[in-house]
């Protein structure tokens, strides 16, 4: 397999909450334009991994390299400025702000006023429902609409690496489908995506590569189609 320099490389990352060790030497790589899925049970360390990349949690040791920058030493807003954006689990949209204001906040780290407007139009064409609700207080949106807003807000940063944490959690099947459609579209446009999903079946269908985390360590990794047929993955994460 031809290997180019990965755009994102976590090397032996350790993260602790007090005395609880959440990540025990995690090594993950993503090539530019790849869709990488991060799978695993609850508490395996998937969200912790994303929070370490986003600069919210500081690794005790190890490095997180993104295009030559060590994210482990950078502040969260500087990381977003590099183009590394996370759409977190539980959405974390600003409920008291309008839909438009939420989207504007997604572009807060950008200086280019002109293209922010273009981004806004692009996001609204991706999620037409948000256009109808643009002046509405976002706390009044339905769960599915809030998830679209969270993804839309992340896209407003025009990320070069988009991290999505459980984007389909608790949503109706139809909405899950449309969210995955958008993920597929973004992937086709060449965006590098790191996807955390409990819906392993769906994730392995769209991903190029996948990593399986178990109690803070990488248990398995490989091409998505290989993992799909891996008996252990089938038994543990695909329900047979």
């Amino acid at each position, binding site marked *: 397999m031809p290997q180019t320099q990965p755009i994102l490389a976590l090397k032996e990352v350790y993260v602790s909450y007090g005395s609880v060790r959440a990540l025990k030497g995690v090594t993950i790589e993503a090539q530019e334009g790849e869709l990488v899925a991060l799978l695993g049970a609850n508490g395996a360390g998937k969200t912790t991994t994303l929070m370490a990349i986003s600069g919210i949690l500081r690794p005790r040791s190890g490095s997180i390299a993104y295009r030559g920058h060590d994210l482990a030493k950078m502040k*969260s807003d500087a990381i977003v400025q590099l183009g590394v954006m996370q759409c*977190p689990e539980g959405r*974390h949209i600003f409920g008291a702000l309008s839909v438009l204001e939420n989207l504007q*906040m*997604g572009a*807060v*780290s950008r200086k280019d006023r002109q293209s922010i407007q273009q981004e806004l139009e692009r996001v609204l064409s991706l999620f037409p429902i948000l256009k109808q609700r643009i002046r509405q207080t976002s706390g009044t949106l339905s769960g599915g609409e809030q998830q679209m807003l969270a993804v839309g807000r992340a896209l407003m940063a025009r990320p070069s690496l988009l991290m999505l944490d459980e984007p389909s959690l608790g949503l109706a099947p139809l909405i899950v489908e449309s969210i995955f459609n958008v993920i597929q579209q973004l992937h086709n446009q060449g965006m590098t995506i790191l996807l955390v999903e409990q819906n392993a079946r769906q994730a392995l269908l769209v991903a190029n590569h996948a990593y399986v985390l178990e109690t803070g360590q990488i248990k398995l990794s490989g091409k998505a189609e290989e993992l799909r047929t891996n008996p252990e993955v089938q038994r543990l994460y695909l329900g047979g």
Partner: protein
Amino acid sequence: MTTFGNLLQQLINAISMGSSYALMAIGLAMVFGILRLINFAHGDLIMVGSYTVLFLQLAGAPFWVAALVGIAATTLAGLIMERVAYRPIRGAPAIDMLLTSFAVGIFLENVAILIFTPISRAFPAPAVMTQVLQYGALRISSLDLITTGVTFISLVLLTLFVTHTKVGISMRAVSEDSLGARLTGINVNTVIVAAFAIGSMLAGVSGLLWSARIGKVDPLMGFYPGLKAFIAAVIGGMGSLSGAVLGAYILGFLEVLFQGLLPASLAPFRDAFVFLALIVLLLFRPNGILGRPDTEKI
């Protein structure tokens, strides 16, 4: 005087009192919304501003120059407070931040006592602030009108700021969901500094009007209005800006109401009745009028 005239006069009085508290309460609510810090030293900023204005006037500066420099000094004091006292303990438990704010307040008061002595000095307010305007039977102090007008303008500007500027919207975003804000790329530091700057500036404006009202300046003068502002912010719902303003006016109205209703023998205990009413209110609305239950964020 007619009953109507009397009512109108009391109403203006209540609005003016509420306005003074509102300008103070906004700063408290802003900082609390973002840092979960109850800044008990906020009231002492008034004192910093008032002494600055006093000495500049004694040195011969015209009032408006002294006033502008005084507001700038208050803003600067608030920023120094943030940098020196609160930034090092950012992220510490709320109780640590609360105790630090007491320490900052006590420190400022004692430095003022050392420099200026505890004796109060007369505050030279310009004539335009001390006039009594007479409309028929109605007597209105110009200070009440100025306080109300200045507060109204400040509130309009503040509203425009938090709804139309990047920093203003960021401020609301951080106070709503600080993790979401950091993940979105908001520079939380900028937002915190802006909150201290704006809150302190409004405290400076309020302090100026307050000194003109009480006519004197002393090292402990900020304690009482600071406490009232805190109460206003609690009634309104700690952290909510519109709540703080609403709470301030409710407090102003209750004070004037009890002042008017209580028999002469009970009038000295006005504040006790006001606080009793507030306790009852908080029994029914524990998070304040516009406050939301503080859902724990991970």
